[in-house]
């Protein structure tokens, strides 16, 4: 039986014989976001996983701080920070196997780095020396997508293609709360469910689409509820609880890998920083709201759990901090070197073979650069 034939037949039947195709009840998200830390479920969590998550969160927070600092120093053109959202970023990368694919949006460079991409290459887009700095096939990470939600159908198509070829590949696609209003979000979820593609959609509901709060974005009971309309399960999770996000995503990945189809996961989190360094968040939200969320900080939550259970001591905290500092120092040193630019690169990758028109334009630029170099050389 082919992949497409597995969908089964559905033909309309006149009432009263008509029946819904599936029972919607099992697709509905839980009433409360799923939590692990500080609950009884924490006892079942793997201590090694929790310690690994902790180390990655600390490193991720430091990465966000370093990238923000580099922006202030003019080394990055812009940086959309994921400070406060590190649990989602890190868990998304950690639940995937080597052959799986990650489809990030522009705010997800931390997930890209956690997946193994060199941070300098992950930040190329934001430094501005090229668009995508890394080879997508090296770590199976799609280019950072700036047009919102447009990367979601790519994830569906890639996962579908892998399934057609009989390969064991799951795609995890990341999007924000604002992105769920885009048509491509809808189309991607619909295609994924119809094709039963092995995809996991992770919505980080961080409260804002730049300045617009969720209430102006949707009237849905929750973003996870949107899954039901497509015939896939929706899961709601505390996005600042790294253990919970990891568990929910790992379940969804496992389900996709086993042929169970796609899942929509909504992680409730908060964008602690402004949209980017160019944004002024005081124009649309108050400090008290930010402070409420700081009290629910992903690192603090995990640290409390680990120290409370004797899985982490002061030396462990210090060791994680040191590792993060080493990473930041390396990143800082490398980003403080000027990027190497070759203007001729502009024409190299437009087509496999440049068109005659591009060849002419390339020669024009070459001549301009030669004249520029000559006049600079002639200066005293």
């Amino acid at each position, binding site marked *: 039986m082919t992949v497409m034939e597995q969908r089964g037949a559905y033909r309309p039947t006149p009432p009263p014989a008509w029946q819904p195709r599936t029972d919607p009840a099992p697709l509905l998200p839980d009433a409360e976001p799923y939590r692990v830390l500080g609950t009884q479920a924490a006892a079942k969590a793997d201590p090694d996983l929790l310690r690994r998550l902790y180390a990655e969160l600390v490193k991720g927070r430091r990465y966000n701080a370093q990238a923000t600092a580099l922006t202030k120093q003019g080394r990055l053109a812009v940086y959309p920070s994921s400070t406060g959202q590190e649990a989602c970023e890190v868990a998304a990368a950690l639940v995937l196997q080597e052959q799986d694919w990650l489809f990030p949006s522009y705010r997800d460079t931390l997930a890209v780095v956690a997946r193994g991409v060199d941070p300098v290459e992950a930040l190329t887009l934001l430094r501005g020396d090229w668009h995508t700095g890394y080879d*997508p096939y090296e770590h199976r990470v799609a280019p950072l997508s700036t047009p919102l939600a*447009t990367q979601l159908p790519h994830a569906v*198509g890639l996962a579908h293609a892998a399934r057609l070829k009989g390969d064991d*590949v799951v795609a995890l696609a990341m999007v924000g709360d604002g992105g769920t209003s885009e048509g491509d979000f809808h189309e991607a979820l619909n295609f994924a469910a119809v094709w039963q593609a092995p995809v996991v959609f992770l919505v980080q509901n961080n409260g804002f689409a730049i300045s617009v709060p969720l209430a102006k974005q949707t009237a849905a009971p929750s973003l996870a509820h949107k899954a039901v309309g497509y015939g896939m399960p929706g899961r709601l999770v505390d996005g600042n609880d790294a253990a919970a996000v990891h568990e929910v995503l790992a379940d969804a990945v496992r389900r996709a890998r086993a042929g169970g189809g796609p899942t929509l996961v909504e992680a409730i989190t908060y964008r602690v920083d402004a949209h980017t360094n160019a944004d002024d968040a005081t124009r649309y939200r108050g400090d008290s709201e930010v402070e409420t969320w700081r009290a629910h900080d992903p690192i603090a939550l995990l640290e409390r759990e680990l120290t409370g259970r004797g899985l982490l001591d002061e030396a462990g905290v210090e060791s994680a901090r040191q590792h993060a500092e080493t990473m930041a120092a390396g990143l800082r040193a490398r980003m403080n070197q000027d990027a190497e630019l070759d203007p001729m690169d502009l024409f*190299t990758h437009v087509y496999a073979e440049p068109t*005659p028109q591009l060849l002419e334009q390339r020669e024009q630029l070459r001549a301009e650069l030669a004249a520029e170099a000559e006049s600079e050389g002639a200066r005293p």
Partner: protein
Amino acid sequence: MTAVAVKPATMAQALTRALRDAMTDDPSVHVMGEDVGTLGGVFRITDGLAKEFGEDRCTDTPLAEAGILGTAVGMAMYGLRPVVEMQFDAFAYPAFEQLVSHVAKMRNRTRGRMPLPLTIRIPYGGGIGGVEHHSDASEAYYMATPGLHVVTPATVADAYGLLRASIASDDPVVFLEPKRLYWSKDTWNPEQPTAVEPIGRAVVRRSGRSATLITYGPSLPVCMEAAEAAQAEGWDLEVVDLRSLVPFDDETVCASVRRTGRAVVVHESGGFGGPGGEIAARVTERCFHHLEAPVLRVAGFDLPYPPPMLERHHLPGVDRILDAVGRLQWEAES
């Protein structure tokens, strides 16, 4: 050597044959779109493919063009070679963002690491009595997007050869099918299809000495008819079929204009901001001293595509082309 029986075939048959041969030769070729499976497409171009290759290779998708093209991008990322059918010109617009922001740019964004070998087939243009949103000449939108190839056949043989080349290309190709030529016939041997045509080469369809008609796709038969009619007026017109709008074949076009000294560009697309302006500028920049008259354009009017009972007034016809030829400053010759 036995003579090959050459029977008339339609452009639609040649396109179907091209898809079938491409799918046979390369298992990574996948056809997808609305109604392309069981029905064989509303124009029947994919007729029989789902039956022959299975639904995994010729897939009826949900009715959502951005989703169709967006998932095709993902499939191409994974090494497949999708051939997407957009049902009509104006129904392709929901896919525009995927086309412009991803399909056209992915090779460039990734420094050549992630090329997207996919073909987007779009039936385009008028002349079939379609109601609104079924007859747009939409080529100018695609021409204005760097990273895309834009190809359009005007003959049965080219329909086969250019579609094979488009599917084989490692770059994305917008393949515009002139829907009023779907049923045009030509002597073409489906048992020995013509060789794959290179993308980016125009061809002289009719040699002449007086002036050059530069055209493509649905307007080629009109120009050929105009060239025949012009003989009665004493004009011996050359007709150049561009076949590929991107890349543009300056060499063939300019060689023709340098021979004849006069040129008229003919297309259905509106004149303002249309392909003719670009072509006229290119010819003028390169052939100024060979020109006896300004390059003229015979284009669709600058209005939304008309209702079917009025479309004949909109589309470039023989008389309008001959009028333009008549305005190419022949006085200097007498």
